[in-house]
């Protein structure tokens, strides 16, 4: 693993200790949401719509309720209607009415798999049997399955009350239109020597976490509730469940279990309010666990999209103008990541003339949820393919065109302010200098492609508490569920500040009653924002320890110095004390020391990644094998490099899956045809090579340790990098994701006619 490391004087940061929760996870002792069992627990199951779009005329669950062992049945009528208004909730915005309707359909079902009723019974098998006894009378309506269908004149309308600002009081499936402009795009095209214009399509894809959604809800007679679940955002689960059920937020405690992957998909609620509703109805604890088919049919995929890109550059490769039109499937309710897509699509580049239009479009498919750098991957697939084509027309290296046009400190972001110090160019240079990029790729039907990506990263709210124990060890308490090693990063930051060994700092992820509000584990924010809170909480603890030492030594606190893990008195020759030596004396020096800090973090530094992928195509079958893959990403500062690499590798692997085989396949009635992991084809171990990583460290000036988020951006480049590699291997430009064998074979077969059709390269 390569590393561009800045000179550092850190003792703990930058090392690779064994994660604190590791032993529990390799011995099977770690408790994930589905691993909780309580006495008297019932099991809940959900009845789901067999139609993509239908009106619910009636629901008769009397036979289900009569089945021995069944304790309760609930339908949409059991939920309050909720306010039809977008309200902020932590990182996200939420429309309580839509959220409630997604959890249990009210008058209409809007996608295949939409929840219609839920049952609680004494065993999961009985609950399943009860579902078969619920009779729902549907009036089936025509489904809308693509953004084109949804935006067409006279399209069936999903939400009769949906309006957008532009159209005024007219029913529509377009929830939002976002426009970003800079300069004069037509003038920019007039300056261009080469112009490329292409249209791209991408399918809905799922986050694919291995652990299905789960929840165990306990409701007590005093009106207090506890929910155990695997979530990225326990505070969001609390807020959303309260909103959906019309309960006071403070009446719910959420205990975050270990979480088996999320990638954005576990930042919202599906089962949690349902389990609580059933628990309220029965007076017994209710546990619910989704099947894989439910996960794929009814939890957040990310948007499929239609994107048109027109981009022009000078003979030398300087991009003069870009015009982009993009429509994203929101799923059944408004809220695709198209806003982020408009703001990320050109973010790595300094382009003087830009026009970007984005549309958020509802369709009869599951409501989309966040997925790793939401919106950015679809958009980068389009833009980064066109940039590759421009490089080819100019006859320059695809990395050089990126460096030539690349954003640097001071370059204005296409939608807003100038960047502070960023590391985009450095990621390109790192790939350019890599052994991989400099090596020769030999053999027929092989090709190499590169692409880059951008993600904002997020700051937001976090709280942290650092407790100094009497033996000189410490615990770090946060509210950030640990998906990929953030506990270790938090412990390392505290250990660094306090001069402790990292093993002597125990990281704890606690429940919503035991720590201040902490936003989701998402937006690549935990090591950045929660890490910042931990850093300050540790500093707070250290300041208190200095006061205690001053008390002990009867000197002024300013005279106490802390270095190399020891407290010294600058004015008398008291024997220096380590943290553990001082900790022992705390009872007589005023009692325990607890450092604390809360942040609504400022200073977020965006991330860039550049990826290089070699492929081999079987031209007879259209099958692509990834031969080699290297990714360079700016981490700002890698606290635990092994888990930074892990994020880069995992994101890259998801990008590769998105590129090659992952897609939601619907029939013309809107039934999802591939709701198993056999037919929703995520990469398996033999599908991937080792994923080589280059951690670039351009410290973020906005963070005390230079940290940027690392969790998301690496998913962005691979689809475009693979499309560009496929082009070099077999001479076809793929404009649709996934580049599945059938599609690629067809494109190869139609190679000659394709050139005059879809794509257009012209001299301006």
């Amino acid at each position, binding site marked *: 693993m390569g590393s561009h490391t800045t000179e550092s004087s850190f003792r703990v940061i930058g090392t690779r200790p064994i994660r604190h929760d590791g032993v529990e996870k390799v011995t099977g002792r770690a408790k994930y949401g589905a691993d909780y069992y309580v006495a008297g627990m019932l099991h809940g199951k959900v009845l789901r719509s067999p139609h993509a779009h239908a009106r619910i005329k009636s629901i008769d669950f009397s036979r289900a309720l009569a089945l021995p062992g069944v304790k309760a049945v609930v339908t949409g009528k059991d939920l309050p209607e909720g306010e039809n208004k977008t309200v902020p909730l932590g990182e996200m915005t939420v429309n309580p009415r839509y959220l409630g309707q997604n959890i249990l359909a009210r008058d209409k079902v809007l996608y295949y798999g939409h929840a219609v009723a839920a049952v609680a019974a004494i065993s999961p098998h009985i609950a399943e049997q009860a579902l078969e006894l619920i009779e729902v009378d549907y009036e089936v309506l025509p489904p809308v399955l693509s953004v084109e269908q949804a935006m067409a004149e006279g399209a069936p309308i999903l939400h009769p009350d949906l309006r957008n600002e532009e159209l005024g009081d007219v029913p529509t499936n377009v929830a939002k239109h976002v426009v970003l402009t800079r300069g004069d795009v037509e003038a920019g095209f007039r300056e261009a020597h080469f112009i490329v214009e292409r249209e791209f399509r991408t399918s809905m894809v799922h986050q694919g976490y291995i652990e299905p959604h789960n929840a165990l809800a306990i409701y007590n007679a005093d009106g207090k509730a506890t929910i155990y679940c695997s979530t990225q955002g326990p505070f969001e689960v609390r807020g959303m469940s309260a909103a959906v059920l019309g309960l006071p937020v403070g009446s719910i405690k959420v205990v975050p279990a270990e979480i088996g992957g999320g990638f954005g998909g576990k930042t919202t609620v599906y089962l949690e309010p349902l389990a609580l509703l059933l628990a309220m109805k029965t007076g017994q604890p209710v546990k619910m666990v989704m099947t894989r088919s439910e996960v794929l049919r009814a939890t957040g995929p990310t948007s499929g999209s239609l994107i048109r890109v027109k981009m022009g550059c000078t003979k030398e490769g300087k991009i003069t103008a870009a015009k982009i039109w993009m429509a994203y499937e929101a799923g059944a309710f408004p809220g695709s990541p198209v806003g982020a897509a408009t703001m990320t699509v050109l973010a790595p580049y300094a382009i003087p003339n830009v026009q970007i239009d984005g549309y958020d479009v509802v369709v009869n498919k599951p409501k989309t949820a966040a997925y790793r750098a939401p919106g950015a991957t679809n958009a980068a697939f389009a833009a980064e393919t066109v940039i590759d084509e421009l490089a080819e027309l100019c006859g320059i290296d695809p990395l050089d065109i990126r460096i030539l046009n690349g954003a640097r400190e001071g370059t204005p972001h296409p939608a807003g302010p100038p960047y502070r110090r960023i590391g985009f160019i450095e990621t390109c240079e790192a790939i350019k200098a890599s052994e991989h990029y400099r090596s020769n790729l030999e053999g027929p039907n092989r090709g190499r492609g590169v692409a880059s990506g951008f993600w904002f990263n997020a700051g937001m709210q976090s709280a942290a508490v650092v407790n100094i124990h009497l033996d000189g060890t410490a615990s770090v308490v946060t509210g950030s569920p640990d998906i990929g090693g953030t506990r270790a990063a938090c412990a390392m930051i505290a250990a660094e500040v306090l001069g402790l060994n990292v093993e002597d700092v125990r990281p704890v992820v606690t429940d919503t009653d035991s720590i201040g509000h902490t936003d989701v584990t998402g937006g690549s924010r935990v090591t950045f924002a929660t890490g910042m809170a931990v850093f300050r909480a540790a500093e707070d603890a250290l300041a208190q320890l200095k006061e205690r030492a001053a008390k002990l030594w009867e000197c002024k606190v300013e005279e106490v110095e802390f270095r190399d893990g020891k407290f010294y008195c600058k004015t008398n020759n008291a024997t220096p004390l380590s943290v553990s030596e001082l900790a022992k004396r705390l009872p007589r020096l005023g009692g325990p020391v607890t450092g604390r800090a809360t942040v*609504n973090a400022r200073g977020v530094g965006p991330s860039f990644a550049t990826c290089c992928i070699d492929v081999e195509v079987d031209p007879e079958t259209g099958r692509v094998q990834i031969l080699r893959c290297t990714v360079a990403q700016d981490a700002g500062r890698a606290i635990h490099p092994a888990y930074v690499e892990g994020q880069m590798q995992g994101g890259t692997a998801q990008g590769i899956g998105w590129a090659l085989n992952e897609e939601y396949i619907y029939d013309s009635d809107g039934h999802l045809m591939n709701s198993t992991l056999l037919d929703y084809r995520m990469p398996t171990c033999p599908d991937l090579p080792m994923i080589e990583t280059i951690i670039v460290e351009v410290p973020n000036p906005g963070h005390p340790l230079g940290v940027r988020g690392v969790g998301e951006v690496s998913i962005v480049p691979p689809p475009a990098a693979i499309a560009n590699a496929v082009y070099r291997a077999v001479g076809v430009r793929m404009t649709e994701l996934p580049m599945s064998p059938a599609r690629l074979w067809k494109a190869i077969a139609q190679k000659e006619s394709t050139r005059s059709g879809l794509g257009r390269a012209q001299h301006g």
Partner: protein
Amino acid sequence: MANVHIPTQMRQLCGGQELVKIPGKTVRELIEELEHRFPGVKNYLLDGNDLRPSIAVWVDGELAPAGLLETVGPESEVHFMPAIGGG
């Protein structure tokens, strides 16, 4: 005078201007002044007493978590951008 960058879809309310220089010590004051000059801006940016959840304000190159209460300096650059969520 802070430099307020007007997002594309708000420009029609602001006589097509991309950049407006206005006085104010907080984002709230800037918006009040904008509304004074260009009626309708407030409704575009605010829902009741706070920024619309779909809009984020950036001050001097940084997302401003305090929103309307964010203080601005005499030379500050202020951008209104779509709010985003991460995965």
